[in-house]
């Protein structure tokens, strides 16, 4: 793995007596789309706010590109582009003036670059109109535009697919993947939309009640192997489990009249044969593919907020 661009070390945030974020430790490498997944109120936005210096840390340290966000803010934030929550813009200015506003704050952004970015997010037609007249999707695009103006090394997007239509979501997804692979930047995306994260991210960190629960690889050679769980519908589950046990397999009850067992393609056929031979009626066999959603609900235990 490459040298991580962002390091969170024991990051803790307390407001009053409540611990919002509890000793969060996380490294983000360049060239990856990293998902930050958690139910509402789990501390995603708080973590992002601390990463961009909008909130102070109660304890721990965040470094971006080797610079501490608390001690060397201006250096650390220089290579970060971000949208925190909704992309709020100056409504009384045009989209173009909004971009010029942010471009002026970082040296070296040419007018040419502004036009390039406008084209990239597909706002050429409306960029001279006041932001007041924009739809949520257009504001989201403008938000992405201001975040990538200065070609950041780390792009932080808080719920970026909010308000985008399916075509827009797909476009954004492809673009983020392109940015991470071609330009080698780190993209940090937060969301509670699991299916979306599955398509967009290389790795996903799952956070709940301010604690990091798990980091999972979704793509690439390290990706977890597809689960080989097979669910078999039968009339006598207990008898079937005994048959499997005799064959050295651990089956478990799944509902009232089904069992689940780990098995690949070939052994599924063998299990079926032995069940039938034992006089058990087999009504159906299906492979159970675990989605990220199942995994997510599994690790967060489907717990309620608060």
């Amino acid at each position: 793995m490459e040298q991580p661009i962002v390091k969170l070390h024991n990051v803790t945030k307390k407001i009053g007596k409540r611990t919002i974020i509890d000793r969060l430790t996380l490294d983000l490498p360049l060239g990856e789309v990293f998902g930050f997944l958690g139910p509402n109120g789990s501390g995603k936005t708080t973590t992002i706010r601390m990463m961009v210096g909008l909130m102070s840390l109660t304890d721990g340290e965040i470094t971006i590109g080797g610079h501490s966000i608390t001690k060397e803010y201006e250096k650390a934030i220089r290579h970060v582009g971000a949208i925190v929550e909704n992309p709020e813009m100056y409504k009384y200015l045009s989209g173009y003036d909004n971009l010029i506003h942010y471009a002026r704050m970082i040296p070296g952004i040419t007018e040419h670059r502004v036009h390039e970015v406008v084209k990239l997010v597909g706002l050429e037609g409306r960029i001279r109109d006041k932001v007041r007249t924009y739809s949520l999707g257009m504001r989201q695009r403008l938000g992405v535009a201001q975040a990538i103006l200065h070609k950041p090394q780390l792009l932080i997007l808080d719920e970026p697919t909010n308000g985008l239509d399916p075509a827009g979501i797909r476009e954004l997804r492809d673009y983020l993947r392109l940015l991470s692979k071609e330009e080698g930047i780190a993209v940090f995306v937060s969301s509670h939309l699991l299916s979306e994260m599955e398509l967009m991210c290389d790795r996903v960190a799952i956070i709940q009640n301010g604690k990091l629960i798990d980091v999972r690889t979704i793509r690439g050679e390290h990706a977890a192997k597809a689960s080989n769980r097979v669910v078999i519908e039968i009339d006598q589950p207990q008898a079937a489990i005994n048959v499997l046990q005799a064959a050295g397999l651990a089956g478990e009850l799944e509902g009232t009249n089904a069992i689940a067992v780990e098995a690949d393609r070939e052994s599924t056929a063998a299990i079926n044969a032995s069940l039938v031979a034992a006089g058990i009626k087999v009504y159906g066999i299906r492979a159970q593919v675990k989605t990220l959603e199942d995994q997510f609900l599994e690790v967060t235990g489907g717990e309620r907020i608060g």
Partner: protein
Amino acid sequence: MGNFLPLIQNENMKIYRRPRTWVMVGILVLLVLTISILWLIFGERSNTSMWDVAFMESSILFLLVTIFTVVIAAGGVAEEFTSGTIKLLLIRPWSRSKILLSKYISIMIFALLLAIILFGSTLLVNWICFGINAGPDAETTFVGMDGGNPFSYMLKYYGLTLVSLVVTVTLAFMLSTIFRSSGLAIGFALFLLLGVNSFVGLIAMLDYTWIDYLLFIHLNLTQYLDGNPMREGMTLGYSLTVLGVYYVVFIALTWYIFNKRDVAS
């Protein structure tokens, strides 16, 4: 890091691209015109000096300059918070102090601009109405006993009111930063300015020493122009010192709070 000027350019853009700013300028100039024209119609041109009208207009309308600048100053920080744009503004390679400074400077530039527009328009309008071929009996009456030059008297007047304007606007700017609500900041600043000023004369008569340190006793510096201060023994230097202390406290509080605060929602 980098060049500070673009930040002020940004803040100026946010002030001057809004129609309300130009409505304010328009109202100011229009009122100058209206008063002069009414005076011309109902007054007698032959014995009216342009300086008298210009001075009268300035003393009335400077209050409007203060109110308008307070409105802009109160919006300065608070509106970034209420609209949520503060989040995108702060995540740039600039310290919070410098971003706040750019806002403060652009507001001060706006205050100066309004004062200059008022000064210029009163002089120009009244020169056209009363100055050209001035009537034979026109004599300037407002200038103090010493009978000095009316132009330099006006300049002194503007200078002194500008000092109080800066203190008032800094107060509004501080309230805007503390409360993050422009309505509250405008309301509070104007209440202090108008409400307290209307009974400040009463307070000034009380015989307690702590009254000497009240901000509002000193906000009206023009009391020294004609040499009759509100409280006995007060001098311009003393008032300026008290205002200076308040100013430093306001600025320190504003910057401390803005730097310290977590930006949530």
